[in-house]
């Protein structure tokens, strides 16, 4: 099957504007601006069943339809902060198929009446930002960005904005604060960005991969898109596969592909032929899933992964083999979350501090069984009380790790 998102794997030079054009590039944007009403663009995306690829899986067209048309100007923001441990798909898309992403961003901007769009890249993507700046300039020179596009009334500018090393800026309201020149700390929601976003104006924020789907949906139709994937999760997804597999990397596959197919058919199986012990389907924010045959044969779509007591999130699948100790895993994830907690809300700031002390003590062999109970208690106390998903998700691996892999903790605690 031909690639929908990672099209550079079929057409290697698609990052050149002429090659992108020859392969149907910008036709959807031109058609939208010259022949379609903005709401018609939103309706096609709605009909396609496209859901946000940043982790939450919110229906994209529905989000666009929430834009407040009584308050102007509008903005569109691309979330290119890609920072979840285990996620590395947006970087490949932006580096290798940049115009399809930019065209998707332009289509979204037209659909919600935005004349300015920002791409928020994590600071580490310095080179990617410079590359996108070049591509944006090429689009301006070719008349795909700028004033009165295709002779219409519609004008659009796209700008890049670099973050500077803060996982929390992937949270949409922290991201907006960061563009506004403040510390990246989440806002209290509601109000949500479609009514109160960048500079207090209605704003649509989507993940890079979400935007990259849009030109193909507009070009081929909503029905075509729905022929791929499952009822609940339409289309294709880029699965970032990492950990103890032979061939880690990005795999574009239809939703509903099973874990077994991803790991064994596409990625060549587990290193040294060892068995899979656990899977984290959504990166470090994920619950730990105990792996058996039933789990391996579970389709990867939003609803099916939920039946395993986990979420698909951004589909950053981390594979742990039977040599990996879960007390070591949660010591790693909590080190991350403790470092990345923004400090705004107490449960997350203090909770991760104490969880870090406990996971460290337990992993180093100095902990007692009471420490494990206390760790579980602290994690559960945090749940439902944090301001944003960072704090909530920081507890997932801890709680599921202790509850589902008790033997790994019995092994390391003092008698």
């Amino acid at each position, binding site marked *: 099957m031909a690639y929908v998102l990672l099209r550079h794997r079929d057409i290697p030079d698609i990052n050149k504007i002429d090659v992108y054009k020859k392969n149907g590039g910008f036709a959807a944007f031109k058609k939208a601006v010259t022949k379609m009403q903005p709401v018609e663009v939103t309706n096609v995306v709605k009909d396609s069943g496209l859901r946000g690829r940043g982790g939450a899986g919110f229906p994209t067209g529905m989000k666009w339809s929430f834009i407040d048309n009584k308050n102007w100007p509008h903005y569109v923001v691309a979330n290119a902060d*890609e*920072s*979840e*441990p*285990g*996620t*590395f798909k*947006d*970087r490949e898309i932006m580096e290798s198929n940049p115009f399809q992403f930019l065209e998707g961003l332009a289509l979204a901007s037209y659909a919600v009446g935005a004349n300015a769009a920002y791409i928020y890249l*994590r*600071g*580490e*993507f*310095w*080179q990617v930002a*410079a590359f996108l700046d070049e591509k944006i300039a090429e689009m301006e020179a070719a008349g795909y960005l700028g004033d009165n596009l295709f002779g219409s009334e519609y004008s659009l500018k796209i*700008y890049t*904005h*670099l*973050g*500077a*090393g*803060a*996982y929390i800026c992937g949270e949409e309201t922290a991201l907006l604060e*960061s*563009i*506004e*020149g*403040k*510390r*990246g700390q989440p806002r209290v929601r509601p109000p949500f960005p479609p009514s109160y976003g960048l*500079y207090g104006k209605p704003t649509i924020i989507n993940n890079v991969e979400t935007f990259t789907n849009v030109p193909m949906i507009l070009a081929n139709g909503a029905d075509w898109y729905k022929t791929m994937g499952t009822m609940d999760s339409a289309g294709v997804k880029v699965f*970032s*596969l*990492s*950990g*103890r597999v032979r061939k*880690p*990397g*990005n795999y574009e596959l239809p939703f509903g592909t099973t874990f077994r197919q991803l790991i064994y058919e596409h990625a060549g199986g587990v290193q040294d032929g060892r068995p899979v012990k656990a899977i984290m389907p959504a990166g*470090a924010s994920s619950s730990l899933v105990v792996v058996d045959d039933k789990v391996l044969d579970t389709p990867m779509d939003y609803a099916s992964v939920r039946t395993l007591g986990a979420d698909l999130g951004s589909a*950053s699948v*981390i594979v*742990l083999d039977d040599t*990996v100790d879960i007390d070591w*895993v949660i010591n*790693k*994830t909590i080190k*991350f979350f403790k*470092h*990345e907690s*923004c400090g705004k809300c107490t449960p997350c700031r203090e909770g991760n501090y104490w969880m870090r002390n406990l996971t460290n003590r337990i992993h180093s062999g100095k902990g007692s069984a009471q420490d494990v109970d206390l760790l579980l208690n602290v994690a559960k106390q945090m749940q439902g009380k944090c301001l944003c998903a960072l704090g909530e998700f920081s507890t997932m691996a801890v709680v599921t790790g202790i509850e589902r892999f008790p033997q790994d903790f019995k092994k390391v605690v003092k008698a």
Partner: protein
Amino acid sequence: MSLEKTYPKEVKQILAKYPPEHKRSAVMPLLYLAQREEGFINKAAMQDIAQMLDITETEVASIVGFYSLYHDEKAGKYRMQVCTDLPCALRGADEFLNNLCGNLGIKVGETTPDGLVTVEEVMCLASCDKAPMFQTQGPDGIKYHDLMTVDRTMELIDALKQANKEAK
């Protein structure tokens, strides 16, 4: 020294990205600019940026403190930032960092005696399939180095040393 005098073209380009009534948005790109020369941001530069954007120096300092890619202290010319987060650690990142430090004769956070390289341990860099990996942060921006070995890293350091000598 003011940024507007040193980098007039860059400052103009940065300010043009944001609505004039929201020029505070320019603080992050301006901080990168201020950091370019010496690898850290000094007090005078923070004052300069605060003045340019009509915000307080404390507000600028709070941005510097919040984001991990801004530095307020001098380190090596290049910061070698090794990811040891879970996915990288599953593919040997901890051993890599250990061996690299052993080879250089320094600890994590320390700088080589010639002042060229500071080795740091950092959080996920979104290159989990290409571990062990690190980024270098230096005067020419940030660059990724994927699928690294200690030998290849030592070669890279030699090349940086050479380039540094030639620049002088």
